[in-house]
């Protein structure tokens, strides 16, 4: 399976390596560098590279290449998925998975890698379990550790791996018991020049933050579960109940996790909440740029945090624009125009217009750049998905004087939040 792992930063430094079997010389990365040289951008490097004796499978995240070395046949997705899980764990532990975070916490990183993989085969990848084995750093603990010289390793050893709820640690206790559910939906769309929708799609996730004592067994039901067309679950969700009753029944992991991600059936019409009216034209030596944004089907909600980005052609030298609202920046190196619009006021539509100057001598570009739009709408799930209720199973009756360990006697605070935002929302001009 996975033989070794190299982490390479954007400068081409191999700043960390880990071997699970015998040591493989880091010169194997030369093949990777070769491939990297050919690519135009860091994302363009082919994720699977075959070399005479090894196979390099890598992911690129947080400006780091995580290059796994394999020597034998292995499903590539297996490796890729695992690498992503590694980075997710880093992000979970250190707040971000970037180079400096990894370097600052290299001991924890090494310990994590040791726990996550044994002889190249994943051992413990559940964040809840790992956190019991290796405590994540936080400021207080760092201070305490420096003073007392104690360690990050847990004194007590975890039991979770051994129970039949492998994703939850035992003995969780909170003074404030709360469970928050964020229903986040993203609209992927391609809008053509005329403003008609070429392709639109809703992808949603339910992210949870569950801080409940004991072993709660939760049931989440929807008003309209039929909307969900294709769903993928966290392992904690009982699939059969979903199949039979369309309710989500689960014993949650402790803390933050993604409960489900879903896809809304394409038969439903997707309401596009904003429209963009672009008017871009080029001529010899310059051009005009005029973009207006407006709300469309927003169901009475405010469209917020609107950001419009546009990657201009390489021949564009500079842009001189005036926004009616918000601020704009043009990066003359990357040739990217970013317009931070903010909220859209339906009475006074935001507009950005002005002149484009081109490199002298070069012909004007033939095609107009695509515009990508970001926005957020609070308190609305564009698919219309609604959570019906959240039940905690097995709450002990009031009369019982004995405090049972299994079902703590508490009333948890429950909250559901809806959010719609733009995913890959692109307007062709």
């Amino acid at each position: 399976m996975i033989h070794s792992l190299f982490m390479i930063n954007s400068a081409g430094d191999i700043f960390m390596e880990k071997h699970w079997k015998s040591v493989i010389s880091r010169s194997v990365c030369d093949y990777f560098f070769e491939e990297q040289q050919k690519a135009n951008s860091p994302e363009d490097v082919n994720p699977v590279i075959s070399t005479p004796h090894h196979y390099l499978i890598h992911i690129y995240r947080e400006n780091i290449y995580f290059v796994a070395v394999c020597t034998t046949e292995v499903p590539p997705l297996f490796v890729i998925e695992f690498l992503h899980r590694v980075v997710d764990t880093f992000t979970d532990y250190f707040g971000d998975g970037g180079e400096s975070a990894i370097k600052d916490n290299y001991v924890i990183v090494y310990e994590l890698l040791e726990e996550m993989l044994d002889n190249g085969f994943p051992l413990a990848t559940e964040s809840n379990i790992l956190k019991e084995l290796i405590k994540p750093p936080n400021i207080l603990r760092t201070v305490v550790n420096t003073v007392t010289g104690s360690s990050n390793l847990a004194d007590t050893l975890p039991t979770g791996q051994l129970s039949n709820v492998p994703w939850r640690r035992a003995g969780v206790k909170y003074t404030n018991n709360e469970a928050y559910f964020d229903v986040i939906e993203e609209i992927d769309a391609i809008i053509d020049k005329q403003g008609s929708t070429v392709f639109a799609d809703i992808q949603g996730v339910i992210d949870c933050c569950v801080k409940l004592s004991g072993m709660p067994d939760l049931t989440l039901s929807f008003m309209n579960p039929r909307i969900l067309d294709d769903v993928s679950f966290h392992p904690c969700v009982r699939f059969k109940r979903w199949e039979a009753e369309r309710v989500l029944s689960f014993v949650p992991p402790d803390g933050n996790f993604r409960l489900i991600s879903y896809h809304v059936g394409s038969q439903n019409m997707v309401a596009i909440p904003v429209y963009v009216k672009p008017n871009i034209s080029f001529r010899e030596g310059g051009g005009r740029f005029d973009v207006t944004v407006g709300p469309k089907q927003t169901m009475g909600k405010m469209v917020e945090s609107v950001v419009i980005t546009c990657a201009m052609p390489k021949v564009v030298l500079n842009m001189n624009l005036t926004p009616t609202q918000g601020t704009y920046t043009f990066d003359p190196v990357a040739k990217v125009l970013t317009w931070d619009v903010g909220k859209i006021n339906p009475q006074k539509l935001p507009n950005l217009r002005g002149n484009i100057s081109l490199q002298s001598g070069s012909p004007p570009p033939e095609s107009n750049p695509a515009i990508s739009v970001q926005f957020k709408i609070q308190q609305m799930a564009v698919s219309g998905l609604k959570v019906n209720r959240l039940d905690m199973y097995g709450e002990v009756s009031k009369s019982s004087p004995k405090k049972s360990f299994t079902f703590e006697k508490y009333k948890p605070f429950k909250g559901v939040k809806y959010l719609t935002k733009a995913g890959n929302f692109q307007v062709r001009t």
Partner: protein
Amino acid sequence: MSNGGGSYNAQNDSRAGSTGEPDLGTEPTGGFFSADYKKHDDLKQMLDSNKDNLKLEAMKRIVGMVAKGKDASDLFAAVVKNVVSKNIEVKKLVYVYLVRYAEEQQDLALLSIATFQRALKDPNQLIRASALRVLSSIRVPVIVPIMMLALKDSVVDMSPYVRKTAAHAIPKLYSLDPEQKDQLIQVIEKLLADKTTLVVGSAVMAFEELCPDRVDLIHKNYRKLCNLLVDVEEWGQVVIINMLTRYARTQFLDPNQQDVIADEDKNFYGDEDEKDSEEEEEDEEKEKTPPKKPYMMDPDHRLLLRNTKPLLQSRNAAVVMAVAQLYHHIAPKSEVGLVAKALVRLLRSHREIQHVVLSNVATLTTIRKGMFEPYLKSFFVRPSDPIHVRTLKLEILTNLATETSISTILREFQTYVTSSDKDFVAATIQAIGRCASSISEVTETCLNGLVGLLSNRNEYVVAESVVVIKKLLQMQPDSHSEIIQHMAKLADTITVPMARASILWMVGEYSDRVPKIAPDLLRKMAKNFINEEDIVKLQILNLAAKLCITNPKQTKLLCQYVLNLAKYDQNYDIRDRARFIRQLVSPAGEKGALGKHAKKIFLASKPAPVLDSSFKDRDQWQLGSLSHMINQQASGYSPLPDFPAAAPDPTVRNVEVPMPWAEKTHKKKAGKPKKEAFYSDEEEESESESDSEESSSSSSESGSESESEDDSKSESGSDKDKKSDEEAESSSSSSSESESSSESESDSESESEPDTKPQKKAPPPKTKSSTKPKKEAKQEVSLLDLDDKIKENGDSIPSQAHDEKTDHTLLDTEVDVSSTSAPVPAPASALDVLSPSLASDLQGLSINDKTDTAISVTTPMFVSTTSHELLHRMTGEGLSANYRFTRGTCIYSTSMVPVELTFTNHTDSPVSNIRIGDKKLQAGMTLQEFPEIPSLPGGGSMSVSIGIDFKDTIQPANFQICTQDRKYNVSIKPPVGELFQAVTMSEADFTAQQSKLTGMNENSGKVSIPSQHNNSKTITARMSELANVAPVSSSQDGIYRFAGKTVSGGTLLLITVKVGEDNSASITVNCELMAICSMLVKEVKQKLSLA
């Protein structure tokens, strides 16, 4: 962690000068070296100190060096001493170091072994596991024997976590010493039999690494693996699914074969009859279906498909992909479409995942076009996609193009052509070319579009268009002279060699369509010949030769000129070509033999190129594999075998306990299959099938496939046979039954008669193989007796419990009696008929024995006499039915709850043909029906027994009771207490098991018991009334313990009632099934508080 971070960066700084070098291991000289040396010195000092935090600090820095890939091997001696450190973190870091360097310093590494050996005996499972992990990771060949011992101990460890680690250690050990393979395979065999989800994934992984060919190890575990699959951790799922794909390819028939050979079958129609008889003997209702009969999927094959389907919902892309490839490779065509949706979902994921998924989808689309058609728009390219994703999407769109979708696709392509990424534009143009060639309706449109691109400002776009147009024109050269003219003109401006070469080739090929332009073009080219690229030069030569043949008047001289130029070219290919052409076109002497045929040689019509998907040939690799990704064989890749032509023996997957008699029958069968009368064979077959059906349905979901329905239908038929057989036997032995069963008895006798003949060859069950019938009879008798009990229960209530008990203990003595004198008709045949189900029954028992050593099923303490109404006589029009839970062992299957149905006819006229009709059961539940009652006389009543596998839920079983002309819907809802079987265990066992079932598996409550009932007798009586549990002897007063296990799943149930002062009692129920737990607590409370 600030201190740790500091040191990592400090190291960074100290070697700032060399960060650019890729290899930091081989480093400095002079000053650097001594500085380094000193630094290591102080590390050594820190390690030798007796302060833990200094040691920790030193270890952190050393790990930092290891992480950076810097050599720290000279510290080995200093580090290895600390392996005994009490500080867990120091210890852990030492482990990290040890694993990295032990290989290089083997002698010193041996010093640490004793520590691990000690740790292997540690009471804490995690310490044992980590010791095993490190021990197996230090690659020192000397310790192989020690590792082997440790491994063998760990495989039978109590803790599944340790066993999992042991599974991981197997490949490590194997890579260290391949000689151990045989021993290791034995270990794997043991691990594969493990029933813990934590272990099986790793066990299969070890299996895959060591001995993927040993299919025989999988047979026995196949069904278990399928059923556990959903609960295995995700990485294990991937490995298991991949392994099962290969397994299915070797063990099952091709589900799509029928379509392929359908035509052939008709030709062989005449042979059918001959074949039939043979086939029946081999494999009656299974795979090898005679023509005309629909293909029947092996239930195990279906089981695999059904159990993997929910995994498409996994969040892990690798699992989804594994299921997708499983469906692609082994599912019937009609079902593969299922996976499309899940694969499309993965496209939302990380870019690398997209890449892999798309390349697999690309292969799928070359074979299964329709599958992804509904998702066409999901493959539209976005500007943010990296180039490799874009090209893959283009590939897929092209593959998906059909007459209906082509317009959408072309419109989409149009926008891509304007992209600023030139490579992408080129790829798009090629894609358009492919669409044009594959769909004739749009060829014209595409061609026009491409011609339009010829006036594009970008040269690469033009060049690519030229090349594509050339290919398209070659397919239909007529009536396109304009385009050729247009392109000939382009030759002046375009500079891309490939495009120029294409133009020249085309003008030469179709020079008759542009008679004026062609010679002129040659003239221009000749002028500039020496500055052209090689590929263009070759085409100039071609053009010259072709023109010289068709139009010698104008071009002869030009041709000579070009040939002369080429004669002195630097490139030998061109010189060669020139010589070759000269001989053909203008031979030096008289016209040679070749010269005459020059025209035929040069101007023969050439076949048009076929524009195919580059993913066409990737089909040969297993989908989702690395080899598929890189389109070449990766080391360690084993190609998927083809489906076998004839199905291998499906009975190998039946789980049996090795018993002498079982082996014997098996051998006999395999030895001379032809001589055996096929009746017995068929019985055997149907038995095994029903067996597998049970297991397969045990974890099924609601998905109703037509095939599985077929299955169950055919099976219920065969089931009936079997049942009537059993029934017949029981009735004949108990000899106290109604006419109806005696009827069936005669039936069964006539059936079994032909059977006895071939059996004569085997020694009659008397002396030699006396063990055989003994065991057999033993089981039989116990079953039959129970059966009797069930039937007699109605009248003989009071001494019931006692009776049963003696029965149990006296079994052995009874055995002898029955084996010698039991009035069982044709014992030999009965043996054959019953053996598989008995075997599985026994298996069920023996598994339990293995897991919880001292727990054994016992007879119920109490059997309720109250029966519940199933069918009221008003609704039943005179026929009433009651049901009662008999708490015995079900005669049909150990996982079923036996239920006794009593039918009473309140009318005067007989009711005939009472039977069970449609069953509407919850997923997973099974119901074994009773044999049809042919007739129930007026005023008479009759009891029959059925078995229901409730799957440990209290979901009601709904079914129909049918009479000759009516149907009544009825339902049986089990009280929770009836889902159990009483088991006996020692107090110690009880507490041990209880400690395992804490946390969410424990539920408790308080109740006050009325004082007049607060005595052990009443409590015990009440408890056993409530649920089928047995009391556990208790050494403490006031604590009553009861134990049972669920009938279907064998899950342990422990109830503790602790009676305190003032008649209050606390009740604790431990059971893995949480729902049952809480229900029981409630019920126990109610029961005990009754006045």
